[in-house]
């Protein structure tokens, strides 16, 4: 099944994968958080696991602060930072409920966490300590950083745009333009807008500028749907990852497919083969030559038997990722 341009990572997590993130500086390292309560660091080139550290509960997200520090949080509501050189843990702080997402904002030099306790917290990565708690109207499901702006997707299909330099008020309160639950939000590398995916096979491309002319450009499209025996099966779209150079993006759904889209010409650039189970997370590396694909059951149909999860590393070409 795996061709010459793709291989499976060895020593993968023992339970579902929650997130994969590439190192910001090299294409060599991949951080993987999992429901088996671990965060692992992989050497992608050598296909070996370099390091592994434990949480007391399943880990829902992880992020690089710099090439030598990882941050992670999960069901134990603890935010941990791990020094990848010395293999040492520090508990930075806690939320009142499980931490769903962890991101780093290089522009403002701050770590951002979103939790089911209806709050976003900022953390100073140098000290490290809490730098503020900001209440959200609902449980935070996803967040993404666009320059110095923070886009938060919550339950109840709400989207909030914050200015990380001035967290005194919400810059924009939006409603998702999709009808169903928000699964993932990722900002364009050019910081103009974001892509939002929903639980019912749909993706929206939105712009941050509230002026009417710009807002006219926004659109949404159907994807990750399979027609079988006359019935259209609609799958959740779990993962989005942007190609940092071309501003194109990959989406992964519970149908096990990965698509790459050109948002400017509104075209699909390519679709890869079907992976064994749901795509839980996707990550392009820093220069956009590799895509990490976490194929792992996301429990969308409850606790049923499912194929084993795995992480695939795929070399991608310009033909697959560049707008035509």
């Amino acid at each position, binding site marked *: 099944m795996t061709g010459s341009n793709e291989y499976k990572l060895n020593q993968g997590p023992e339970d579902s994968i929650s997130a994969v993130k590439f190192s910001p500086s090299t294409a060599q390292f991949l951080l993987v958080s999992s429901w088996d309560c671990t965060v692992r660091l992989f050497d992608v080139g050598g296909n070996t696991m370099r390091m592994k550290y434990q949480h007391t509960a*399943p880990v829902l997200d992880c992020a690089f602060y710099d090439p030598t520090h990882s941050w992670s949080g999960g069901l134990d509501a603890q935010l941990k930072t791990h020094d990848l050189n010395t293999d040492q843990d520090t508990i930075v702080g806690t939320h009142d*409920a499980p931490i769903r997402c962890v991101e780093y904002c290089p522009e403002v030099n701050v770590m951002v966490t979103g939790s089911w306790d209806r709050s976003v917290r900022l953390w100073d990565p140098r000290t490290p300590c809490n730098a503020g708690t900001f209440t959200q109207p609902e449980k935070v499901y996803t967040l993404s950083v666009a320059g110095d702006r923070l886009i938060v997707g919550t339950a109840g299909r709400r989207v909030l745009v914050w200015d990380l330099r001035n967290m005194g008020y919400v810059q924009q*309160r939006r409603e998702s333009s999709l009808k169903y*639950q928000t699964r993932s939000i990722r900002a364009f590398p050019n910081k103009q807008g974001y892509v939002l995916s929903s639980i*019912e096979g749909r993706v929206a491309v939105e712009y941050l500028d*509230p002026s009417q002319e710009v807002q006219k450009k926004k659109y949404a499209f159907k994807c990750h749907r399979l027609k079988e025996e006359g019935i259209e099966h609609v799958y959740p779209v779990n993962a989005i990852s942007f190609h940092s150079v071309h501003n194109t993006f990959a989406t992964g759904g519970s*149908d096990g497919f990965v698509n790459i889209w050109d948002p400017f010409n509104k075209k699909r650039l390519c679709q890869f083969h079907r992976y064994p189970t749901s795509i839980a997370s996707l990550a392009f590396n820093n220069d956009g030559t590799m895509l990490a694909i976490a194929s792992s059951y996301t429990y969308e149909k409850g606790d049923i038997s499912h194929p084993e999860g795995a992480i695939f590393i795929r070399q991608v070409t310009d033909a697959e990722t560049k707008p035509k």
Partner: protein
Amino acid sequence: MAEGGDVEWELSKENIQPLRRGRDISALHQALSLQQDGFSSTINQQRQAFESELRMYDGDDPLDVWDRYIKWTEQTIPQGGKESNLSTLLEQVVTRFTDEKKYHNDPRYVDLCIKFAENCPEPLDIYRYMQAQGIGVTQASLYIAWSEEYENQGNCRKADLVYQEGFKKCAEPHDKLLQFHKALQARVSRQVMMDVEEDDSDDEPKQKERISLADLRHRGKKKAIAPIIRTGPAIRSISGGLQPRSAPVLGNATNSRLVVFDENKAESAGPSEPIFESWSAPPTARAKENERRPEKWCDVKMPQKSKFGHTVMAPPPVKPTFQPFVEESDQPPTMTPCKINPAVNTVLSTRKLCREETPLKRLQEHNQQQKEAESGKLQEQSMYCKELLLSGATEFCFEELRAERFFKRMAQESQEVRGHEGQASTSDAN
């Protein structure tokens, strides 16, 4: 009862929605003190607990969780409103069990349906829907609520018919139904009596009716009743209370304790009839400017000079050189008139709940969809556990459901460990 609670209750009476069954005073105190520190995490935690219980429940009485959740919401968020999610919850529970035959005459479900109806703009439609679906047809509470709704709308005949229907269906408890029916009859007959009296009074000339702002009282040592024969609505006014009456005719000010100032008779003090001076002559016009005799205006023509010096009567209508003013709304604005405030910008929220979409419509749509799904006509199928994510007032994501399972398992394991330890320690003691 805490002293502080009492004060809060005094201060926030207007923020407490009345409940049909009243309120538990201790719960109310607790709710109010919780809200002192904002819409607090305690409430959110409890709500989250209920929400996860809704989804994780695997017993044979799922309605129980809903019932407790809704009662908790009513008691804990006494001001109601959107924040309480009460109407969402009621709609959810009604929709969810509308096909469950075993709950159709369960008093809890029927009560929830009635609460749902009362929260709807058109309760009567819901009651009719319930009757058509056979929900609560043997429950007295349905007929009582239904009849009260008719009565509120002033349709007493229909209100009575509803009770007749209830008797026909042998709704339980029979005593309660009978009692409420009797009360309705009593109210209706009283109403009829009052209507008759009103009709009588209408025949009499209005002038005879006297105003009384206070009851007539005897003065001094005389214990005589006020020597005026009162008729019509005036009799009723003795019993006090505000009643709508026709325009008051001003009479003797001495009759009432309260002297009402009246500009027409401000000068004529004393107990006399107001004297209307007849105007002997119209008031004289003083210093009128530009006086002009009335004449027919349409005949008057403005004299106009032509280029050639002689007068023309009517110049041909010329096309105006200026742009005539057109209402802004007639044309789409070509550009944004002012800076858009992002906070109130409607561009950012695209999906608005359709006005025509009533809760009943949604309920019927749900039924339709169920039937279509059963007959296999469905075109689309969601490949995830939609029911679990969307039941309750707030949605859950897959990870939350899985987390609930994880926490449950952890709790069980730790209990087992404790159990083992307990056994071990007892065996040690032995």
